[in-house]
């Protein structure tokens, strides 16, 4: 993974000093709340319901064991012994005192970490494929490009006060695992006919209040020009994005109002000035950065491990875990392990200090000392020998990190919601836990199969509900918490925005609602058909019928 050189380290150290002084001035009354807000947000610091929340950047989800140990240390020393993995591959601490945040940042800096631009109206942490470098369907490793873009976007002086937040995602495989169609800029790495690397560029995607799927504005931007091209997009957005209405300030609204053709024209006109300028990438720089993402020292193994097969045959619980949480690796004899953070006893994505330490130990012992965070709020050990999977499983299981439900109904995405977040309209964690409690029978979960359930506590959509096969959105109705259900959303290559099925529900109704939806699917699916495929084939009507009943659906149609 990328290691800091003295330049990188100095920038992060100087940030610590800068924020220490900003915090001092705020506490001394020299900075008002309004003045301090964007400064702290650009350092990932929110003021939440109970305490400040600090969001730590995990660039494109990649962590070393040393960094994970530091996160554990921070959780123990400055927080309540746990941390939370976010839907943008970052880590959050829910309880640090404002006064100690500079200390936390100083600790992070010792392991090449920071909280730069994890919030605020600026270019945010760049996200990517958690299986980068190990997936069989990868064309081009996205990590070096993410790092190049990370450096370009860090403290970019022109784009620190954009109309609104700005999110970039990069994917380099046949399957999109970075939700690039729902980002302000989505970059898909590809090769042209001559074999040269470049990017297909999507713009104006996003979730939030107005979910929109990004549109292509460039079929192929050669790699040398990706910075100047992004800079052109950002400059057009910075100048012409709306600033009069917070809800219409994302780039997607600008793209929609201009039309993608006109937006593209403006970007190309701007790009003509920057193209081939000093920010044009050099082979030397790309090679330098790519040199940090070399192939680990894999052993030469011949095919699948016989012992692994025998262990699965002998131990059904291990077999169940292996079936769901162990994924194919491009190197023979290796596997990708998903360490689940969806134990129903915890909030989705939460991880204790003790578990963090175990994860670091597992990574050191079995996976070249590296860990990835996924936007689905799990952790990944990307390079485990098949022969060592059993050992990993035993240790993970003993620490409640081996819930064998990856990709199943209860492996849900869930924002912190009203329990923590000041923006939320409704709680989301109790809904997640109630659904997990309802569907606690593993055989039944396996019977239901692949399904993505995403929960957001408000329109900001941190829980990605728009792209959940089943999406749940917390809404406020006259001061009460209600939940709106949508179906048919999807991430990946066939990204789609879910459609709301009808009136919203009280919290207590939610497990039943999900049961009814699942019942319709199980009754009507064709052989081998996944949930999302059934929804696409049948549309919403049978599900509405199943959830609301015949009388209610009829009445609704009459009134329509």
């Amino acid at each position, binding site marked *: 993974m990328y290691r800091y*050189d*003295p*330049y990188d380290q*100095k*920038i992060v150290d*100087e*940030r610590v000093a*800068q924020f220490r002084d*900003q915090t001092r001035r705020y506490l001394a009354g*020299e900075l008002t709340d309004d*003045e301090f807000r*964007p*400064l702290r947000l650009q350092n990932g610091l929110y003021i939440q319901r109970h305490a400040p929340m600090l969001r730590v950047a995990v660039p494109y989800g990649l962590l070393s064991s040393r960094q994970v140990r530091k996160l554990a240390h921070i959780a123990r020393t400055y927080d309540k012994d746990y941390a939370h993995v976010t839907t943008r591959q970052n880590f959050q601490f829910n309880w640090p005192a404002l006064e100690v945040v500079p200390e936390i940042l100083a600790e992070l800096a010792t392991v090449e970490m920071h909280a730069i631009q994890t919030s605020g*109206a600026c270019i945010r942490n760049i996200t990517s494929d958690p299986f980068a470098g190990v997936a069989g369907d990868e064309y081009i490793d996205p990590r070096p490009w993410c790092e190049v873009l990370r*450096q*370009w*976007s*860090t*403290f*970019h*002086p*022109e*784009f*620190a*006060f*954009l109309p609104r937040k700005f999110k970039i995602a990069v994917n380099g495989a046949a399957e999109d695992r970075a939700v690039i169609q729902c980002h302000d800029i989505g970059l898909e790495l590809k090769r042209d006919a001559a074999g040269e690397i470049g990017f297909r560029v999507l713009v104006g995607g996003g979730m939030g209040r107005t979910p929109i799927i990004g549109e292509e504005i460039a079929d192929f931007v050669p790699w040398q020009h990706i*910075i100047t091209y992004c800079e052109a997009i950002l*400059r057009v957005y*910075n*100048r012409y994005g709306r*600033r009069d209405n917070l809800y219409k300030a994302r780039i997607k609204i600008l793209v929609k109002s201009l039309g993608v053709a006109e937006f593209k024209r403006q970007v190309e006109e701007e790009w003509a*000035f920057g193209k081939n*300028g*000093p*920010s044009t*990438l*050099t082979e*030397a*720089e790309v090679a*330098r950065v790519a*040199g*940090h993402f070399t192939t680990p020292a894999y052993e030469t193994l011949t095919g699948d491990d016989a012992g692994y097969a025998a262990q699965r045959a002998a131990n059904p619980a291990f077999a169940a875990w292996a079936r769901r949480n162990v994924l194919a690796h491009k190197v023979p004899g290796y596997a990708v392990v998903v360490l689940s953070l969806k134990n129903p006893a915890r909030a989705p994505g939460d991880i204790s200090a003790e578990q963090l330490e175990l994860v670091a130990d597992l990574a050191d012992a079995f996976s070249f000392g590296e860990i990835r965070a996924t936007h689905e709020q799990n952790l990944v050990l990307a390079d485990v020998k098949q022969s060592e999977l059993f050992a990993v499983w035993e240790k993970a299981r003993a620490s409640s990190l081996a819930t064998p439900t990856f990709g199943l109904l209860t492996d849900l995405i869930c924002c912190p919601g009203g329990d923590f977040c000041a923006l939320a309209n409704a709680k989301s964690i109790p809904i997640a836990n109630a659904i997990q409690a309802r569907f606690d029978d593993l055989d039944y979960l396996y019977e239901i199969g692949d399904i993505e359930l995403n929960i957001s506590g408000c329109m900001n959509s941190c829980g990605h509900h728009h792209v959940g096969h089943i999406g749940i959105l917390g809404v406020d109705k006259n001061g009460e918490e209600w939940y709106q259900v949508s179906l048919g959303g999807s991430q990946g290559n066939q990204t789609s925005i879910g459609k709301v099925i009808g009136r919203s529900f009280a919290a207590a109704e939610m497990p039943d609602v999900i049961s009814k939806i699942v019942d319709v699917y199980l009754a009507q699916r064709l052989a081998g058909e996944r949930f999302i495929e059934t929804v696409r084939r049948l549309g919403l009507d049978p599900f509405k019928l199943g959830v609301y009943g015949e009388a209610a659906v009829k009445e609704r149609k009459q009134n329509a």
Partner: protein
Amino acid sequence: MPKLIKNGQLIDDDARILVLDETQAPEELTLADGPVFVPFAVWQAHKGQLSGRAGLGVWLDSHEEVEDLAPDLDSIGAIALNFPKFTDGRAYSAAALLRTRLGYKGEIRAIGEVLRDQFFFMQRCGFDAIQPKAGKYSDAQLEEALASLKDFSTPYQAAVDQPEPLFRRATRSA
């Protein structure tokens, strides 16, 4: 006398920023003597007469386009770009465009809601003059705030102050 940060130094400056109220039409204006920044509309209306006047600058609000000043840049000694709110970042692009695309060599001054934690970004985008609102900071605070111009010693990306990105400026270890 009001203070101004010019090229990293604190100096006295008595230029006025002329703001028209609703009752004033740009066409009917008589200017008092002394250094002044006039709004773009006044410049448009009195260009012929104001052109080359000593101590005259033009200020643009954040929605106004620097391109509209392009034909006149040779006759304008200073341009001020207004930050109506410090979170309105359009003037960063405006300053960068003035310096790079339009080749403007005169003073570019940040006015309006100008706070010390923006100084570093402003300087990078080509502002050589920074003027927080009168009364926002004491002279001592301003003196201290000069440190913010140097918040980061070696930025990654190219900008007006460093036309080359770090990967061209330095040999970085692999």
